[in-house]
């Protein structure tokens, strides 16, 4: 009969000499790393780069829209630029942003594991992403495409632009997303530390779990859709092109079966970050833990059944429009539950208004607007007027940017000390956050107004009455640009001369705060044992540093 091992406390080393960033500085150790933290950082650098590419494209678009007629680009170029803005932002930035960057760095650590289940597959996933990105860049170099990021047929099957290289690039990147999802699901199921039952998982993990399930189930359908599109273009298969006897609405069903759940891939991890931020900076255990955990799964499930709300005016049957509209309203319920629970968490909490918390609170406001306007669009009669107008553009920017990007920035600031070992300038961070908030609303609030007054989306020219609103929106885009440049500036400064970060600057209770900043190469030099939930702020920190000896000696001979 084995005796139970003795629990010891393993305090974190403050300001370690050696950590995962510097234990091996060769280029090869980075390019061939199987360390999830380094892979996550490479993803982070990539998504930030593509965010700036997509952002510059957006600034160009908004500049062109300053005057109703041609400013400096012609209509065909405009079509290519807005298509590229969408494709780059969606596939190269936002889908990998939270899961592949922040998720890769922190998921194993929060689980008390030394890495993800399949570290080499993780590296492969990154290089597949890079490969897909290269195809996209190739497509851009050949003039890009002008079909809109949705590649609707029959235009995409007949357009002269570089459709095949772009769709093939997206096809390849889909596999990166699938591999990340597979890795996360197996890691969460099989590699939790002793004592870490499902009910003690941080909510960020629950959100990554729900997201990974969506990634695994939905992305293959995008893959077959794009493959069929490529076949349609090359062989003239005839499934989607009416001239060949096909049905263009069928393409839309295929496309949106992935692309609607894709928006939940974008927002659900953001929800996870917000749970972490609000609990930590209210110093209070999250209100309704299981409601939030299960609502992520509910959103993942119901989110697969609403895709037709992108197609209300496409010619699909009345029966399906009614079903999709009903389910669209229904999917708002679990999301609403989250918002209420977050607010309830803050109630009577001890609020510490640091910049991550500022982003979380801004998220609550901006995402609520985005979410409610989504419900508006889900109403059939209203949708007839608002479909393909700027109202839709404003809605999705409020949820994707006001939602995901703000949560991403909040998470970036929250975990910055942990993965860089440096603190950033808190005052500059707050100022930048406020600038972003102002710039964002200036850019997109006028678009709700324009859209409801009839301004169509993707239009190169417009009638006089919309010019003032377009100009507000364009000025707003410049304010946003300034805000992002400021963030980039103080974060780079933090790397160069920021104050050394303690292991737990915010007083968190999940496992990542129990190890040094930056993290050790193998995360834990012991087997962590979890006794309490991740929001048990009333328990002393020592209770969260317990573990047992793991009997492994960590020599550096294993290549990482």
């Amino acid at each position: 009969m084995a005796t139970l091992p003795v629990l010891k406390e393993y305090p974190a080393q403050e300001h370690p000499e050696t950590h995962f960033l510097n234990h091996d500085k060769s280029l090869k150790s980075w390019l061939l790393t199987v360390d999830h933290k380094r892979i996550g950082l490479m993803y982070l650098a990539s998504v930030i780069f593509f965010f700036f590419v997509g952002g510059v494209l957006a600034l160009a678009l908004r500049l062109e829209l300053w005057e109703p007629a041609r400013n400096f680009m012609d209509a065909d170029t405009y079509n290519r630029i807005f298509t590229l803005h969408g494709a780059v932002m969606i596939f190269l930035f936002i889908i990998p942003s939270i899961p592949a960057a922040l998720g890769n760095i922190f998921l194993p650590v929060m689980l008390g594991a030394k890495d993800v289940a399949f570290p080499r597959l993780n590296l492969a996933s990154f290089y597949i992403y890079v490969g897909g990105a290269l195809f996209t860049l190739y497509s851009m170099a050949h003039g890009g495409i002008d079909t809109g990021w949705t590649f609707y047929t029959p235009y995409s099957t007949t357009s002269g632009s570089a459709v095949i290289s772009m769709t093939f690039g997206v096809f390849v990147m889909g596999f990166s997303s699938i591999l990340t999802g597979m890795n996360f699901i197996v890691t969460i199921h099989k590699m939790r530390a002793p004592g870490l039952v499902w009910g003690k998982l941080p909510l960020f993990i629950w959100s990554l779990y729900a997201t990974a399930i969506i990634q695994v189930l939905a992305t293959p359908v995008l893959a077959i859709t794009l493959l069929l599109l490529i076949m349609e273009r090359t062989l003239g298969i005839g499934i989607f092109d009416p001239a060949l006897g096909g049905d263009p609405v069928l393409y839309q069903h295929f496309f949106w079966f992935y692309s609607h759940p894709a928006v939940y891939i974008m927002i659900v991890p953001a929800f996870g970050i917000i749970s972490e931020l609000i609990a930590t900076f209210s110093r209070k255990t999250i209100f309704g833990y299981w409601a939030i955990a299960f609502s992520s799964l509910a959103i993942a499930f119901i989110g697969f059944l609403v895709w037709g709300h992108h197609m209300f005016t496409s010619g699909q049957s009345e029966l399906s429009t009614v079903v999709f509209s009903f389910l669209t309203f229904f999917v708002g319920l679990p999301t609403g539950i989250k918002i209420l629970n977050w607010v309830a968490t803050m109630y009577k909490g001890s609020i510490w208004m640091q910049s991550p918390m500022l982003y979380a609170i801004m998220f609550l406001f901006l995402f609520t607007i985005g979410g409610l306007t989504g419900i508006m669009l889900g109403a059939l009669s209203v949708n007839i007027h608002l479909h393909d107008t700027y109202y839709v553009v404003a809605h999705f920017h409020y949820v994707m940017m006001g939602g995901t990007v703000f949560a991403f920035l909040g998470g970036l600031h929250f975990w910055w000390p942990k993965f860089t070992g440096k603190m950033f300038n808190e005052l500059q961070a707050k100022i930048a956050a406020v600038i972003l908030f102002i710039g964002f609303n200036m850019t997109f609030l006028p678009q709700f107004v324009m859209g409801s007054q009839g301004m169509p989306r993707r239009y190169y020219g417009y009638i006089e009455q919309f010019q003032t609103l377009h100009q507000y929106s364009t000025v707003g885009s410049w304010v946003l640009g300034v805000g992002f440049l400021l963030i980039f500036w103080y974060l780079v400064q933090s790397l160069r001369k920021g104050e050394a970060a303690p292991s737990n600057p915010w007083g968190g209770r999940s496992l990542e705060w129990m190890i040094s900043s930056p993290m050790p190469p193998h995360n834990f030099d012991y087997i962590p044992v979890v006794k309490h939930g991740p929001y048990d702020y009333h328990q002393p920190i020592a209770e969260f540093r317990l573990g047992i000896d793991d009997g492994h000696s960590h020599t550096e001979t294993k290549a990482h």
Partner: protein
Amino acid sequence: MSHTDATHSNSHLQHHFVDSDQQFDSAKLGMWLFLVTEILFFGGLFVAYIVYRAWNPELFTMAATQLDTVMGGINTLVLIGSSLTMALAIRAAQTDNPSASIKYLASTVALAFVFMVIKYFEYTHKFELGIYPGEAYSFTGIDHPKAHIFFSIYYMMTGLHGIHVIIGIGIITWLIIKTRNGAFNSSYYTPVEITGLYWHLVDIIWIFLFPLLYLID
């Protein structure tokens, strides 16, 4: 706790796993998740099939007469046989019998080759009649304006399936080489196990393709 016994070393245990059981279970779950993606991937083609068959039932009945039921039936038996040999190969690896494992893996590859050869004959026969995928379709024997769509779907489904068979042949051949080099034993046969799972799915997909494409009465 660990499955390894005294006769086999633990060199396959990766550092981030606690023991080889955890590693093996993880590999299996990982492969099942990959199979889930394959099911949804092929599933899209099944959706296209179902939608077009519901719209044009008489077309599907007419066009299916161009498919050779005998060849399709033989291919079904061939793949079922290959699933059996694959399962026997795994069993041989589990029971420290590498020579038997190689025999069964080679049989699986041989049966897969037979499948592809029959497929080759089916396709070339169709090409002779002018039944090509997409715009190249020039067969006049089916009196229906959308006949080319049936065959486009047919070629996409069987073509994609065929590609997966070829990939399977490649991976199983690699397994034969590794087995000959003594890589697998009762403590470590994970690659054989998960390749088996992949191969069985290839069989399952054909189990659905056969009645849906060949046996429309």
